[in-house]
């Protein structure tokens, strides 16, 4: 089994499994920093997966499809924000509603566009391409590791940096964090918490839409019913384990991707698959345990000084 793990194929599998969760994790982080738990990530990702297929087909370009999908993702974020902030709906209930609507709504939309219910195979969509970086791809080992991944994977990695800078180095990011930390304090210095939370949820929708786009236009090349398959919820957990920071969320998402890829390869062995299925979750738990233990040690050290 070791021979299959230290390969470029395995590395690629990790990145594939990580990408959609990473986008959703960043989406969860921005929303959480503004003080709202975006549990609708799952439904938004599912919608975006279908939008990606439909609009990349209509525009006959993956970039066109991606941009429209992101816009519609932002719209979904806006809708959630409207329910939560204007109509004062419970944020969890509104999210559950969106997730339920997504399951049936995507099938309905797919039926309208393609006449099919199970898959979008008859829609001629344009998946995001794989990227070969000139010069780098000729470098031995490094080239095969770092090249040939989906464009969306690179975008996800870039997004980690962008979201980090946005949250910690820009005025708007500061406002988002301020609102999330203490709404009243933020209001007292003239920040409209509603406006800030609107912005945060729209950004959250845009980010998770990128993850959804990758699901049907990169990971797979078609939309299949319920294909988000819990990734939105996993991302929510990943973000929370990463203390709702982009870097922390990134680390947990990668850890989860590694565990998932490892579980897939482990299925080739005779280990019972019920055990294997636990691996991604078990790994995340252990990772979390180590993380909080080290934090505790640090705090004790700091306290001792």
């Amino acid at each position, binding site marked *: *089994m070791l021979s*299959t793990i230290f*390969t470029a*194929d395995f590395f690629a*599998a990790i990145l*594939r*499994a990580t990408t*959609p969760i990473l986008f959703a994790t960043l989406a969860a982080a921005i929303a959480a920093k503004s003080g709202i738990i975006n549990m609708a990530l799952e439904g938004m990702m599912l919608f975006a997966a279908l939008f990606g297929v439909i609009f990349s087909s209509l525009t006959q370009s993956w970039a066109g499809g991606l941009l429209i999908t992101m816009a519609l993702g932002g719209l979904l974020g806006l809708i959630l924000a409207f329910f939560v902030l204007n109509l004062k709906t419970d944020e969890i209930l509104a999210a559950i509603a969106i997730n339920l609507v997504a*399951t*049936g709504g995507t*099938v309905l939309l797919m*039926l309208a566009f393609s*006449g*099919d*219910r*199970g*898959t979008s*195979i008859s829609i001629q969509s344009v998946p995001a391409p794989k990227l070969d970086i000139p010069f780098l791809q000729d470098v031995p080992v490094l080239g095969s590791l770092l090249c040939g991944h989906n464009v969306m994977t690179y975008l996800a990695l870039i997004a980690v940096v962008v979201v980090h800078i946005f949250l910690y180095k820009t005025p708007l990011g500061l406002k988002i964090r301020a609102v999330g930390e203490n709404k009243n304090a933020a209001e007292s210095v003239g920040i409209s918490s509603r406006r800030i939370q609107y912005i945060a949820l729209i950004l959250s929708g845009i980010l998770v839409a990128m993850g959804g786009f990758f*699901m049907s236009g990169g*990971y*797979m*090349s*078609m939309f*299949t*019913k*319920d*294909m988000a*398959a*819990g990734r939105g919820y996993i991302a929510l957990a990943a973000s929370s384990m990463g203390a709702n920071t982009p870097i922390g969320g990134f680390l947990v998402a990668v850890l989860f991707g590694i565990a*998932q*890829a490892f579980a*897939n*390869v482990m*299925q*080739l*062995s*005779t280990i019972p*698959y*019920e055990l294997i*299925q636990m691996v991604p979750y078990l790994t995340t738990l252990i990772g979390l345990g180590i993380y909080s233990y080290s934090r505790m040690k640090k705090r004790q050290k700091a306290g001792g000084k």
Partner: protein
Amino acid sequence: MKKVIALLLALMLMLGLVACGGGEETTEPEGGEGGESTAEPYKAALLLNGTLGDKSFYDSANEGLTRLRDELGADVFDFKVEQMGGTTADEPKWEPTLLDYCDSGEYDVIIMGTWQMAAPLAKAAAEYPDQKFMFFDEAFDFAGNGNPSNIYNILYKQNEDSYLVGAAAAMMTTDETLEKVNPDDAVIGFLGGMDNAVINDFLLGYIQGAKDTNPDIKIAIGWVGDFVNSATGKDIAMAQYQNGVDVGYNVAGNAGLGQIEAAKEMDKYAFGVDSDQAALLPDFADWIPTSALKNVGNSLYAAIKEDMAGTLAYGTTVTYGFAEGGVALVKDAHYEEMVPENIRTTLEELEQKIVNGEITVMTSSNMTTEEIDEIKASVALQ
């Protein structure tokens, strides 16, 4: 005074009920026993807890009944399809719809399928003992429901066509004329949705078919864990293909589409399941040699014909295999193009042997989990 009125009203209601019931009773025998030429046609109702257009199961049922009507004429056999919808939101109306149909008394037989309809059916069958039902693709628990004698239960021998797929896969993976395979090692793959009785029935047939063909065959068995996670299905299949698997078989619903995508990406083979996936997925047809079909339409066609002749054994479970046309491999021009002739000839012989009983295919229905695990372990990779 009030009491008298109440009593009178109750009496009137009862009379009304008796009158209605009597009316139905007098008309029913006319329809049922009247001469063939003058009588009402044999009428069937097909209740789908889903919709037509699934290009698989339900379309197949509809096709079988349509074929029968075209053949016999609408004055001899007619049917109505009721699409109840398959989402959780539709679920509350399944049972009332079924009871409405029973209540109408218009139909000689009411047909439905899948495990989700088992409970409503059990209720309807008890409430309407004179109504006949057909129930496909899920075992009906006769003993647990007071042995109703008005249900005809149809199951499919998915293990039999999976046997042929296993044999085909084992032959193809070592075939030197095929470009997409590495003939040096005999490794094939299987992607299942969930580790349950039906999927294991597919798997056991697949294993037996492969082992009978090549005793040294190794099979990478992967499980998605559900029937929707196509992306994870793809990743598991990719891992299989990257580790020597040349030919796979997907039995994982929509998640199985992941294996077909992986086959295209890795330029390997993936067998289709339940419906003709090569025809359904034209962009992927070059990687799908053929598909194992579950032919609901054929089984209904045969059962209704038998019922019209008055010989159908209601109250029993009948399993439709190759011999009864309940399962089949797609054998069209595409299949002939993809699968070398010597393999096709062997498959034809194997099918004959299954039909005439020379080969008995294992089934999960009479095996324990330990026995099944042992068989899986006997073909494991490592």
